[in-house]
């Protein structure tokens, strides 16, 4: 005790001296470089072969607004289809039944194994294989009347998304501790009821960040449906520049809308995450 006192006394009292801030020269220097580079890029865009009046005029043009609405409708519906398929396929994949298991694996293999644009073109041209579709004796229709650009895009995007989402869902379900399954079984719950009441609610917490990621991807993937004439925002922007040759201006218009939508979706995802993390808030910060 005495030794400690001596030690403390042998040091000068520094408590009143202000602490100098580190100058962080490199931070200042790199930030300045970035600002300069951004200014140079902005200047190039301002002075390039871009008629900015076209950007502002078409940013709120009716056909562009309709396009962004169609983009969002398709993204939401295709994602909903993808999530439903994803949950079903993930449950099948983890089931003890070998038939369900292999059907699920086959589905994921097929729809993850081919490019999305190829699948969209196949759905759109399906009438070359099946000229009419329906239930024999009850109802038939020409395939092209059923397989509109809207439906072809929805099936193409949604079924493809389902293959990816099933893996996200499977990861979520595997993340729930095995004890939870055993406990549900011990109190006499059936497999499906345990999934619905115990496993999936806990899996949701894990799957929301990757699902939000996938949804943002989906918003932009809808642009591929432009090749099968679904009038989403890129398709409509293209139609305008096909007529007036203002390519870069209309691409900027479409780009700004995508950025706006994604900027809104990001905080929405955080709200959703917080809701599903209610039970485990301390880990979700």
């Amino acid at each position: 005790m005495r030794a400690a006192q001596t030690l403390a006394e042998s040091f000068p009292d520094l408590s009143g001296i202000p602490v100098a801030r580190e100058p962080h020269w490199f931070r200042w220097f790199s930030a300045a470089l970035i600002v300069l580079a951004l200014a140079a890029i902005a200047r190039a865009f301002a002075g390039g072969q871009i008629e900015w009046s076209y950007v502002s005029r078409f940013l709120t043009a009716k056909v562009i607004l309709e396009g962004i609405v169609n983009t969002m409708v398709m993204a939401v519906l295709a994602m909903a289809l993808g999530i439903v398929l994803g949950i079903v396929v993930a449950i099948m994949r983890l089931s003890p039944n070998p038939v369900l298991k292999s059907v699920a694996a086959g589905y994921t293999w097929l729809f993850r194994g081919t490019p999305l644009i190829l699948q969209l073109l196949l759905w759109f041209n399906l009438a070359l294989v099946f000229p009419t579709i329906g239930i024999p004796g009850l109802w038939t229709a020409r395939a092209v009347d059923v397989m509109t650009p809207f439906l072809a895009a929805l099936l193409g995007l949604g079924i493809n998304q389902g293959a990816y989402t099933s893996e996200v869902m499977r990861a979520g379900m595997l993340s729930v501790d095995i004890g939870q399954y055993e406990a549900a079984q011990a109190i006499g719950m059936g497999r499906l009821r345990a999934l619905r009441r115990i496993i999936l609610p806990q899996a949701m917490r894990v799957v929301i960040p990757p699902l939000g990621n996938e949804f943002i991807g989906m918003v932009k993937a809808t642009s591929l449906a432009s090749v099968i004439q679904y009038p989403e925002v890129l398709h409509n922007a293209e139609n305008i520049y096909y007529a007036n040759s203002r390519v870069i201006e209309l691409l900027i218009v479409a780009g700004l809308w995508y950025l706006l939508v994604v900027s809104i979706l990001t905080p929405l995802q955080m709200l959703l995450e917080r809701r599903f993390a209610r039970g485990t808030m301390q880990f979700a910060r």
Partner: protein
Amino acid sequence: MTRLSHFLAFAALAASAPAQAAELPAEIKQAGTLRLTVNSTYAPMEYRDPATNELVGLDIDLANELAKRLGGLKIVWSETPFAELIPSLQTKRADLIISGISDRASRRETADFVDYLTTGPQFFVMAESEAKAATDLCGKKVGTIRSTSFPVEIEKWSKQNCEAAGKPAIQYVPGENSIDVRNQLKQGRIDAAVQGSETLPYAQQQEAGKYRVVGEPFAKGYQGIMFRKDDAALREVVTEKLTAMIADGSYKAILDKWGLGANAVAEPLMNAAPQ
């Protein structure tokens, strides 16, 4: 300006040419290369031969002959979607564009055209269709390539020939390229289709007996070689070579090779399409 005055201006230009033969721009001469961008989805104007994957077509042959006559320039080819042809010219990715593109007033804001082939949008249907005359298509679904001038021309024709006669208007259905449009026709998504008259003989030869044209091309126009507005030197020297090719029959030989001898022009015309 009327077409006649266009022609006179052009004739005057052509007449003065021999006095001071047009010179290739120094930049191109020095490089020894001509950079050309095509959209290779428009047989027989330009497409990739399925057997060899080589770029072939009427435009390709014309360009090769022109390059030879411009002092043996080597052509560096690149490809792009149809709608990106004009930007390719503006951004100087291409020195000129010869890619089945129609001379249109709206496109002359950004470029000058030297017209070298007559063309016109042409209705066609599946061989078994009931449509006999073009007016039978009023109220029907007609598809065409959305990146071209054809949608506007269909609408205009429909106003004059369907709506003016009290018939329902043609319903335009967009397509991505000529193959996509023909696929939509085969599936019955559309009742008739439109593409440039210069491409139909080839399509009919590929799928013999499948399609039937309805009526005549419904608007007269020209395919043009496209130049930047500020690139008069290149435009003049190419026009001079093209005039010579018409005179010595090599132009006609190329058109005949692709079955399009009937679409020949008597001489190159500048910005001459009526619309």
